[in-house]
């Protein structure tokens, strides 16, 4: 299993949070949003200009800049794993 920072997921890919490196304000916000170790997060899409990113977790959408997402370390699911197959390429324009 590969551990990467959350901004490096590719669109349609899901990861499982293992660690949050942020501190202070950002950490508190992320925790309040339910970004906790063990939670699955999908990168849905990247904004037209390359930043921010649109994530989906706990059945809602959260957008975050790469700069913020960099602080969240996720475990990448194997591409043939549970969600890996369900890539949403067909919804990407």
């Amino acid at each position, binding site marked *: 299993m590969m551990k990467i920072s959350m901004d490096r997921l590719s669109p349609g890919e899901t990861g499982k949070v293992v660690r949050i490196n942020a501190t202070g304000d950002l950490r508190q916000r992320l925790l*309040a*949003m339910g970004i*906790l170790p063990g939670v699955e997060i999908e990168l*849905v899409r990247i904004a037209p200009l390359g930043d921010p990113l649109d994530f989906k977790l706990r*059945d809602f*959408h959260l*957008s975050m800049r790469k700069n*913020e997402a960099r602080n969240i370390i996720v475990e990448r699911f194997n591409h043939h794993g549970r969600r890996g197959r369900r890539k949403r390429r067909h*919804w990407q324009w």
Partner: protein
Amino acid sequence: MGGEAGEKEGIGNGRKTCRVAIVGNPNCGKTTLFNELTGARQKVGNWPGVTIEKKTGFLSVNNRIKAEIIDLPGIYSLSAYSLDERIARDYLLKEKPDAIINIVDASNLERNLFLTTQLLELQIPMIISLNLVDAAGKKNLKIDVDILSSHLRIPVVPTVALKGQGIDKITEMTGKVLQGEWHKKMARVRFGTDGEKHISEVEKLLHKAAERMNLPLRWLAVKLFEGDREYELLLESKELLNRINEYRKKTEKMVGEDTETIIADYRYGFISGLVKEAVTVTADIRITLSEKIDAVITSRILGIPFFALVIFLMFKISIDFSQPGIEYIDSLFTLLLNWINVRLFTIGAPGWISYIVVNGVIGGTGTVITFVVPIALVFLCLSFLEDIGYLSRGAFVMDRLMHWMGLPGKAFIPLILGFGCNVPGILATRVMENEKDRLITILINPFISCGARLPVYIMIAGAVFARNVGTVVFSLYAAGILTAIAVGLIFRRTILKGPSTPFVMELPPYRLPTLKGILLHTWGNVWSFVKRAGTLIVAIILLLVVLGYLPVGVTPNSKDSVLGKVGLAISPVFKPQGFANWKASVALFTGLFAKEAVVGTMGALYGVESRNPDSSGGRGRIKNGTLKAKIARDFTPLSAYSFLLFILLYSPCVATMGAISKEAGLKWAVFSVLFNTAVAYIISMGVFQIGTLIKALL
């Protein structure tokens, strides 16, 4: 105690007045519920000392209780990090409302209940309005309200605020809770064996402090256990803090996580358990309609064109469509002016009274009223976009570009609106959450060249630059944008320093807005503009009119008036800029009325027939040929350009001052007048001097 109770009961036929706060996440239908509960009887203001909107209204609970409803800012948690959270938290803990109506979005239950688990610790009687149950139904979620209620041990009422469903029940339950007819003790989240053991130790330490700080013990203990900055500072004894921190470190060592994460984890654990029991998923929907829409309109290819289209339409509607309205109001006011003039004449009022009343009071009021149309249209558009959920998508699409300027994506719309008129642009900053970002966006807005400045450019550039008028005008627009960006970046690094807040923004599902919600929102904003910005605008116009009229007997705004004399006196100041002529100086003064008034003043002062010599109305028609020649005589291309730059950048007009004062306070309005004038002074001087130098070298 007796006095307080007496006060509370004093209002309205012996009915008791209670205070009920509405608390909930952003985008959970909080405002809609507030509107449904209070109807049109609401007051929009600001929270003390900040520019965040405060809405209050009244609800007749039953024949014994009347409740003041306070709409707290939408928040995700009760930490002390963001201003919204601090406002909500301070209100709940210091003002101690009699009850809380906690709105929970049924279609997004887990995250919404996080705040609920914190509210449980405040020991304020609470009701849950389980809102948007229809949206949850569409997501194939079945929620058992009784299980939620029995586990949380608080009343839970399913509602669809948009359709007014469940509102009566909320009112009824609020009455019950306020009358003490709900006896269950609220549930409490437990933080694991290690956590609980240490938190109860912390509680023991805090008995006295909690009493002194007038805070619920459990709440204070948990917050300090988490390392809440604000409460740490409020704690008197350093030793106490050290002992609490010992418990904290012990727990962190045992669990292997920091306490903040542990607490959040147990809260979400509690929620998961609750949701598992109360919610049944009847069918799995992979992609919602909202997601399908987003896949198109926030996509790589269509995201920006779609946003541009939205902005274009908004611009069209608010600026172009408002023209007929403005002209209609203008003509009504002209009629009114004539009528009052005649009336004053027939009752034999002295000329100076008529002049000041007509031009100052009525003219000033007219200026305020003409802004009502574009402001109302802008807010109609903004409320619509916000309620439907597009505003956050716009921010998502534009964030990258704005980030480069040190601002969040939501700053884009206020700035682009500034090209039409800075007043609605500044008012539109309401959609921004962060105080500093908002202030910067407000303060740089006047540099964006508004529509009123265009006639000035055309007149002066038209007179002086024969062929290149288009290029000159374009360069002025560009100069305005560049100055706005530069000043924004400077402010971010100096007077409004501070890390830009982390960008973590929810993209709520699209929802159909209600006409009622949009109209109420628009009305609230228009009314508060008229009331709060209006007074300042009329006052300044009155002052300028009087200065232009005095001393009695001179032609108003001529060289002999006080205003003219001041113009004459200060004109040497503009020598380094190359336009040290008194007519230009006076025009700068009248330009404060409205930037387009420069046209009327220049016309009047250069002695050419103009329809509106008093210049407060502005849109004077000028006989072209002679005026152009006369202006061209007084300006070289370089000094004309420097004059135009000055007009672009100097003090915002009175209406904009009013808007800044309303949104950021009088202090910032004054700052803006002084700062922008200084910027204009320096930049035009630089351009003129460097230009002169280059000319000399050639």
